[in-house]
Structures are given as C-alpha cells and as structure tokens.
C-alpha cells in the first residue's frame, strides 16, 4: 500500500456518498471514502450491512449438510488440537448440536459484530486519546471501524463458496494455504495459519481510516496494528503448540 506516503489528509468532500458508495469506496479508495465518513460519521447502516451479510453467509453455510459436517469436523479438530480426545459420546453430543447451528451462527454474528466493533473502536479511541492526545468524537471512530468491516463482506463472499466447495470450515485465506507441505501442528504452520490476508487488508484499511480521522500518517498506525497482530499470532500459536502437543 502506498497510502502511507500521503502525509496530508485531504479535506472532506462536501458530497455525502451513500452507504453502498462508502462501503465500496473503503475497498477501492479508502482514503477518500474515510474522508467522507469522517466528515459525516454514520455507522448504523454500515454496521447493519456488514453484520447482516456476514450473518447470512455464515448461517447459509451452516444450514447446508456440507457446512454442518464441516463445522462438526472443525469443532473436533479444534478440540483435538488442544489435546482433548474426542470420544464417540462427545462426537454425538457435538453432532446433536448442529440442529440449531444455523440460528446460532447467524445470531452470534449479529451479536458479536457490533460488540467487537464497539470494543475495537473503544480501545483504539482510548489509546489514541491517551497517547496522542487526539480528541475526536467516538461516533466518528465507531463509524470508521464499522466501515472497515466492508473487507469482512468481501471475505465472506470469497470464503463461503470456497469452504462449501472444499467441504471444510478451516480458513482458506491464511498464509498457511500457500504452504500445504508444512506438517500440521508445527509452530510455523500454526503461525502462518494465524495470518489471514483479509485481516491484513482490513488492518490496512483501518489504519488508513484512523489516519484520516486524526489527520496523521498511515504508516505508524499500520505498523502498530501489524506488530500487535504478529505478536498475537505468535502468542496464540505458541499456546496452541504447548497445549496441543
């Protein structure tokens, strides 16, 4: 991304693009789009579209037989990766829970997307307020984070058909997908499996949005996000290796 070379935030566009234009703009012209979003922070529509799209995609996949079997296997694999031996009774119990998986998947997305957006916006807003002394309306921060969810829409549209075709629920957009020769369970494989290209994209979009919001350079925000992401990936991978053996 070359956006980090731009040191000056452009003046807000006097035009007020619609919801679809804002979401598409976040994907293809993030700086301009966030300029408009910051100028007139509206978050409800974006959050609703993002949450609804993700909930629909997740719910549809889990509603299919392929998706349910894939979800079941993912749950089993996850438990086994943490050293849990899945007995037939446990397997049956997990399988019986698939009846309501559609509603649970869609409902949890509808609940967690606004919640996570709120938490993320709150953390970033607080950190920027404390460290940078920047004063911006929280509503604007929430709108930026909510619009960054446009990447999640693309991710769902990309991942759901692919997972349905593969019949698995594992994330196909991580770096581990490029290294199928790596032995499962190794630290390298787990670490690469934690690096999702769509999250990388979303973090960059978020960094641009926050930079626009605070009128600062994108680079430091992006570097901070990527560093935290890498540290988090290393930590989780390490924990999984230790627990999963």
């Amino acid at each position, binding site marked *: 991304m070359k956006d980090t070379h731009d040191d000056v935030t452009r003046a807000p566009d006097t035009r007020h693009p619609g919801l679809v234009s804002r979401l598409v703009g976040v994907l293809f012209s993030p700086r301009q789009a966030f300029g408009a979003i910051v100028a007139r922070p509206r978050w409800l529509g974006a959050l609703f579209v993002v949450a609804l799209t993700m909930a629909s995609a997740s719910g549809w996949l889990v509603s299919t037989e392929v998706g349910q079997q*894939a979800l079941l296997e993912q749950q089993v694999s996850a438990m086994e990766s943490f050293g849990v031996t899945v007995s037939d009774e446990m397997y049956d119990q997990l399988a019986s829970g698939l009846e309501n998986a559609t509603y649970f998947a869609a409902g949890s997305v509808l609940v967690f997307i606004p919640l996570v957006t709120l938490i993320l916006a709150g953390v970033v807003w607080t950190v920027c307020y404390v460290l940078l002394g920047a004063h911006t309306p929280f509503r604007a921060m929430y709108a930026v984070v909510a619009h960054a969810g446009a990447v999640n829409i693309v991710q769902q549209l990309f991942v759901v058909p692919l997972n349905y075709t593969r019949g698995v629920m594992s994330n196909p957009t991580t770096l581990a997908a490029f290294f199928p020769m790596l032995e499962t369970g190794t630290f390298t494989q787990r670490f690469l499996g934690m690096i999702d290209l769509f999250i990388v994209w979303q973090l960059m979009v978020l960094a641009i949005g926050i930079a626009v919001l605070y009128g600062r350079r994108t680079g430091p925000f992006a570097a901070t996000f990527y560093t935290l992401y890498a540290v988090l990936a290393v930590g989780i991978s390490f924990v999984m290796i230790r627990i999963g053996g």
Partner: protein
Amino acid sequence: MTGVRKAALIVAILAIGGALVYVNLSFERATGPEVEVEAVERRSLEAIVSASGTIVPQLTVDISADTMGRVTRLEFNEGDRVKRGQFLLEIDPESLRSAVDRGEAALRASRSSQRQLEVAVETARVTLDLARDNLERQENLWELRLVSRETYEQAVTDVALRETELRAREVDVATQIERISQEVANLESARYELTKVTITSPFAGVVTRRNIEAGETVVVGTMNNAGTVLATIADLSVIEAEVEVDETDIPSIELGQWTEVTIDALPDRSFSGIVTEIGNSPIQATQQGAGTQATTFKVVVTLDDEIPSVRPGFTCTADITTAVRSDTLSIPIQATTVREMVVDTHGKMVREESEPRRRRDNQPAGSSEELPPGFSEEELEGIFVARQGRAVFLPVETGIAGERYFEALSGVEVGDLVITGPFSEVRNLEDGDAIRVVDSASSR
C-alpha cells in the same frame, strides 16, 4: 492513487485471490488422525496353538503291597534310579514262611501215607492171588466130589472178598494221590504268598515318590479301603507333556504335529516333540471369570529326547505348529477389522465415492433402503491401507494365523501400506477417511 496504480492494486488483489482459490482447491492439506503403517511383505508363517499343562512320564506305576505286614527291609530312597527286578523292600515273611514249611511237611506226610497205601494194595493183590489159587484147587476137588459144597463156595466167596478189598485199597491210593496234589497246590500257594513279601521294581526307572518307612505296617487294599501305596516309579526315558487345549483350537490339532515345549522350571531351553494323543472328551468346564466357561481337551505331546533334570509335575507350555506357510503374503493381525460395506449381487464390495470427512456411527454412509436393487450391506473382514492420504478399506481373505501376521489369501499386494495403529484410530476409521501417515520404523 492514480488509475494505473489502482488498476495494479486490483490486479494484485485478484491475483492473490486467484492464488488462494487455486492452492485451496489443488493442495488439500493432510488432515485426519495420525496412523502407523506397515508394508505388506512375503513372510514364512507358522500357525501355532499354545497350551499349558504339566510334564508327566509316559509310564508311571504305583507300587502297592499285596500282603499285609510290617516292613522289615527297605533299600531304596526317593529319587533313586532302579533297575528292572531290583529289590526294593521286604514285608515281614515269618508267618508266610511258616505256612510254606507247614505245607511242605503236610506234603511229605501225604506222600508217606501214599506209600503205605500202595503197600496195602500189594498185600491185597497177593491175598487175592492166594484166594484164587485156593479156589482153583477147590474147583478141581469139587469136580471129583472130594470136598464139600460148602468148602467150594467158601473159596468162591473168599476170592470175591479179596477182589473187593483190592479195589478198596486202590481207591485209597488214588484218593491219597489227589490229596497230595492238593497239598502241592497249597504249598505252591504258600510259596507264592511268600514271594509277595519281597517287592522289586517292575521296570527300570526313577523312584519319584516313597511313602513308606522301615517298620511301618502296610495294608492291603480292599474294595472300600485303598491299600498302602508304597512308592511310585516312573520311566523317565520317555517324557510327555499333557496340555489342555481350548476347544476352538482342537480341530486344527492332528497327530504327529511338531511341537515346541518349554518348561517353566528349565528356562532358556526348549524341547521338541510330537502330538501323540488327542483327547475326545472334554477335561472339564473350568470357570473363567463371571459367567464364562472354557472347555478344554487333553493333548499329549511326547518329547523326542530325555531330559535328565526333569521332574514329573513340572508346568510347561506347548506350542503346537498346526500349519506352516513359506513365502506367503502376510498382514499384521492387529490391522484386521470388520466393516459393514455395500456389496453387489456377486458379493463384491462396491466402493462409495470417497468421502473426505470423518464419519461416525451416528452418520452412516447409507442405509439399505437407499441401496440400488440387488445391493446389500454385509460385514466384511479386511484391512485399511494408506493411499494418497486416505484410508482405503480392502476386503481380505485370510488364511492361517502366525504369531503377529495373518496369511493373506487375496485382497492385498506386496507393498501395500497397511494401517496398523493406533488401535483407537483403526477402530474408528471408515473407507475414504483422511489420514496422516507418521514415520515409524516399520513403515516402508
């Protein structure tokens, strides 16, 4: 951002997206449980039936007393090697010896009486001759009427009387001869009884048990009371192993089968032998745990060689070789399993489309109602082999069972990687399941 850079960015994103789709659909990461494999090889197999039992001599004799009395001489100890006819012990012979003496004396007296009776016969015969001579003279005189009729008839009567007397004496002699025969028989019986006080070894062997001490009184067994067993002598030149074989193994046991016998008391050594006897009646139904019974049959294995240090009663284990195959396809025993599979009208397994996901019992691959006409589900014995990251079920016809391997009559080829473990995974595997083969020493 210029149009060119934006276009390049879009192209890059599309390229990355396309690459993601490609690698996800082209390279499926190995998933599923880790399994161990072992290559199918040609091996020499021996089907062995193992059974435990005890060592026994082929010939064992309990020495008992035939006469009652006190042991006066005892000249053997437990463990002694004895020869055929060797003196072992003597029971007080005095009373029986006296009986013999009495018999001999009675026989002598009878024979003396016989001689007296024979003399009496001779006397009667002479008297008869005299009477006949007298009669002849009296007849001549009577014809000349020189004697009275009374005298003549008295001579006739005298001859008849003498003849009767002679026959009586001859009968006495015959009776005495019979009496002598009886005395002889009694004497022989007494002498035979006397021989019973001396007990000798009936054959060459080893005294495996001695139950008597000098001075003790032995008792003759009767119908209701067992007599005293003085000693046990065993012929250890021919040793047998009497083992109990489970009923399920009995059909494969045949006379003459080679057997390796190990004796617990003689570790690190094994002895060869052959099956010489197979029981036709069960020994007994022994209780094994709650509610289960095991029926066993006695099988006798005669060892080829003498074992100097062996003792009757040693516990032993016999490995009976019931079948031998050389250079035959073999599969690990622990790899064999049974699965319910779909078969066609000819009984051949119909492999369903490979299913990448693990299935459990709660999600059967299909029910018989959904099968095409003529198809059915049957339980097939087979193994799982590893092929391209999948577990593939192969029905296998097995032959004899060796110690670790089954003979594979059909269904596998040399080099097939048979999934051998772990058992928990083999138990749950289904045809087409994804697997990951782990490196193991036995993998090839």
